[in-house]
């Protein structure tokens, strides 16, 4: 498929009829969709002519499917339920297992940590006590530019200093295939990222990818999990099962929701870490990184749960570079991943909030890694949540906040 082009209102309008009929070619349809999501005008013509299409759906002569189809469908649903349950449970066990290790930051607050500024152990302890567990993520440096990453992947080949780029790509493919189902999507959040599409790694062909990031749990690679992190900002959801349309859906997703720079950056970040040239802390950081990756993998698994509630966070004026995603599967512990946080000033800490109407309830403290990334696990909203927010609070956190959020994102359903 050729690269997408940005089209203007007139071009979008010209395509409206075929768009509403679902008959544009893929590229043209994606361009229209992207235009509609980014254009501030109403484009009433789409609704005007689109309104008749539902009637066309009901015109064909009635024919009945075979009686067996019903059972086939229910079997497929059952298999879907079991697969996701296994996946989630496996990820949860992993997180639990590394959480129990003595060297894990929250379990051993007194152990010196490699993370520099802001790695305040009392905060880690506090986070532990708060139940949702705060985990600072990753050693390193700011994510590389997407172009740089493409090169990294291409140049380094399959294995770079212990980081399996191949696995990362497989994971990326999986993630990309977590495209939304066909219809009725929420529009992309306003704060979503701008998007050099060309830098996105190409997608491998189909089904095996579905298993790559989510079932290879025994030995998660940092890169794979980095890709997992990267998937998180995507508002894409829950459809891991191999299916014919997934690649196209993936293309679609990547084109209309430009999340991939983060993905690429995260893959590259881990790739860079893996190059082994960093500093004396490398070994420790890799070990720590592996823990984080497992948490991120669990985030991915959570995202794959049917009907997980997802909030994509964007930085406010106070911290414009911040991005993040909260994933809360029904009846399960959820995760919040935030990237791009500046170090908290001395005596301050970042705190996450469940926002319902005008009420904010504390969701846990965020421990920011050297690279500005933080993972909060164990999210368990007390009730319906409209949005997630992150504020900067006094050390130890507060019960009620009067701060303006540094990052905020509405729950999309």
């Amino acid at each position, binding site marked *: 498929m050729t690269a997408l082009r940005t089209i203007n209102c007139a071009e979008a309008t010209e395509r409206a009829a075929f768009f509403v009929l*679902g008959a544009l*070619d893929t590229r043209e349809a994606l361009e229209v969709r992207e235009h509609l999501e980014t254009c501030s005008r109403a484009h009433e013509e789409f609704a005007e002519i689109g*309104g008749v299409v539902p009637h066309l759906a009901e015109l064909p*002569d009635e024919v009945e499917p075979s009686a067996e189809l019903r059972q086939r469908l229910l079997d497929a649903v059952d298999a*879907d339920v079991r697969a996701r349950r296994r996946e989630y449970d496996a990820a949860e066990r992993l997180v639990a297992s590394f959480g129990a290790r003595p060297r894990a930051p929250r379990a051993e607050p007194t152990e010196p940590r490699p993370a520099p500024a802001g790695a305040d152990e009392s905060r880690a302890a506090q986070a532990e006590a708060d139940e949702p567990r705060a985990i600072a993520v990753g050693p390193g440096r700011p994510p590389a530019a997407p172009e740089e990453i493409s090169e990294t992947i291409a140049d380094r080949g399959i294995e770079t200093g212990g980081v399996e780029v191949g696995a990362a790509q497989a994971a990326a493919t999986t993630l990309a295939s977590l495209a939304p189902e066909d219809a009725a*999507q929420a529009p992309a959040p306003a704060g979503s990222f701008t998007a050099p599409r060309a830098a996105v790694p190409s997608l491998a062909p189909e089904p095996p990818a579905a298993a790559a990031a989510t079932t290879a749990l025994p030995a998660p690679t940092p890169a794979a999990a980095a890709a997992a992190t990267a998937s998180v900002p995507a508002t894409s959801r829950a*459809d891991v099962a191999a299916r014919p*349309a997934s690649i*196209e859906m993936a293309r679609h997703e990547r084109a209309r929701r430009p999340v991939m720079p983060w993905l690429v950056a995260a893959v590259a970040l881990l790739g860079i870490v893996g190059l082994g040239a960093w500093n004396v802390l490398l070994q420790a950081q890799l070990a720590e990184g592996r823990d984080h990756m497992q948490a991120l993998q669990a985030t991915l698994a959570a995202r794959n749960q049917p*009907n997980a509630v997802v909030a994509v966070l964007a930085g406010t004026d106070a911290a414009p570079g911040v991005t993040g995603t909260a994933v809360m599967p029904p009846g399960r512990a959820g995760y919040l991943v935030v990237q791009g946080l500046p170090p908290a000033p001395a005596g301050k800490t970042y705190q996450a909030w469940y926002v319902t109407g005008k009420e904010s309830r504390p969701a846990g403290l965020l421990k920011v890694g050297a690279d500005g990334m933080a993972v909060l696990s164990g999210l368990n909203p007390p009730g319906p949540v409209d949005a997630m927010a992150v504020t900067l609070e006094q050390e130890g956190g507060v019960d009620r906040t009067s701060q303006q959020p540094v990052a905020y994102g509405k729950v999309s359903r």
Partner: protein
Amino acid sequence: VTDVEATAVGTAAETGERSDEALLEEIARGEPDSLATLYDRYRTLAYSLAFRITGDVSLAEDVVQEAFLGVWRNAGRYSSVRASVRTWVLAIVHHRAIDALRRKRATSELPDGDSVPPVGLVMPDVWPEVVGRLDREQVRRALEAIAQPQREAIALAYYGGLTQQEIAARTGTPLGTVKSRVRLGLLALRHALISQGGGWERGTAEGGS
């Protein structure tokens, strides 16, 4: 309450009283029984559409199965503001069916699969229906009322999954003409449907429930 709504309620009552929206909420919470109920409610419409598009019994069944799996996985994202459940489900079926059709075409007619854009993603965002539920005959009459070339172009696009370029090539018509035919045809169909439905517009009268 209009006749149109009464019809919809009647459909719901046949299979157990729960509204489509309530069923979707249950599906979103992971209730397979509710999916089965929704399937029973819409399997005929869904399969009829899939069969009309694919012209193939087993492909049409695959399409319907995939579409309902899609409903299962994405029920939580359905928004009643945009469209009725019925429209949403059928839109997913349509998308899947066109997808399957284009795939099939790519392999059976054009050995070089790369030359054909792999389907899909053309699922338009869902909109509130312009007019309320009309019976099939009313819609057919409305369609009959519009000019034949417009009708043909709409059918090739919607049921045939042909792109505007493909329709132009197949009918030997300039691309610009194809575009305007489809657009004008849809507008004409809209007017015809609105007059069939007594000029009542669901979207404005009801806020699209």
